[in-house]
């Protein structure tokens, strides 16, 4: 997990969050499947992997208590099946930061790799935050 929080102001295009490693354990996948009310099919649901990547990012940004961050859009691409129990490494970077009145649009790029360094997933998230 990232061990150092940075300020929102430091999030400029090109900034890379420290990579975060997760083990996609049976208990994590079970909790996720229960939460999304789904039966599962023996593999880690791709959006459960995205959730790990987003968690790695949100835990690094010390937003003031009560800040409402709006997830405006999400792009994702899945490259390979991920078995339960696999370990993944999440890389997230700031692609763009756009000020729009009292809001800021933060565009983040994410890439997830497995233990063999093969790309599992990539994506782009747009988050709107009050400035």
């Amino acid at each position, binding site marked *: 997990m990232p061990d150092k929080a940075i300020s929102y102001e430091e999030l400029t295009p090109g900034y890379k969050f420290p990579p975060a490693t997760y083990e996609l354990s049976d208990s994590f996948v079970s*909790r996720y499947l229960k*939460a*999304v009310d789904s039966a599962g099919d023996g593999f880690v649901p*791709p959006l459960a992997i995205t959730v790990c990547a987003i968690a790695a990012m949100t835990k690094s940004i010390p937003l003031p208590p009560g800040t409402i961050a709006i997830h405006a*859009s*999400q792009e994702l*691409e899945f490259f390979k099946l991920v078995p339960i129990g696999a370990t993944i490494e999440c890389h997230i970077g700031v692609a763009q930061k756009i000020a729009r009145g009292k809001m800021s649009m933060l565009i983040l790029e994410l890439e997830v790799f497995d233990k063999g360094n093969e790309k599992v997933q990539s994506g782009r998230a747009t988050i709107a935050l009050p400035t």
Partner: protein
Amino acid sequence: MLTEIQEGKALNPVVKYITQEKINLYAEASGDFNPIHVDESFAAKTPLGGTIAHGMLNLAYVSEMMTSAFGRSWLSGGKLRAKFKESARPGDTLTINGKIDCIEQKDDVSYANCSFECRNQKGETIITGEAIVKFSSGRK
């Protein structure tokens, strides 16, 4: 899974009822405890007027529809682009619909281009988007 991948074919819809309990479970699984999702008294005082479901929870239902239609082809060769238009709230019934708009072929690989939307019981659009699934032509 779909027995035939054809242009114009509708995907089997997914219908989900949103409860605060499900939102809380999702917060625990994802680690996203933003009070707008889990603190009813805090959320009531915001412009949103109450708690809302995580956007990624709603998007998980879209992925469920795609997995149900395309199986492993989605899990290992899927691509999506989604816009979160409105928030889903406890008490909402979400219906996710999708269809195959067109099929493209490049070399030995086919791509199903789909559109999807998630609406609540009032017909309000919660998510819209497009998805592409890569599959071998033999699967058609």
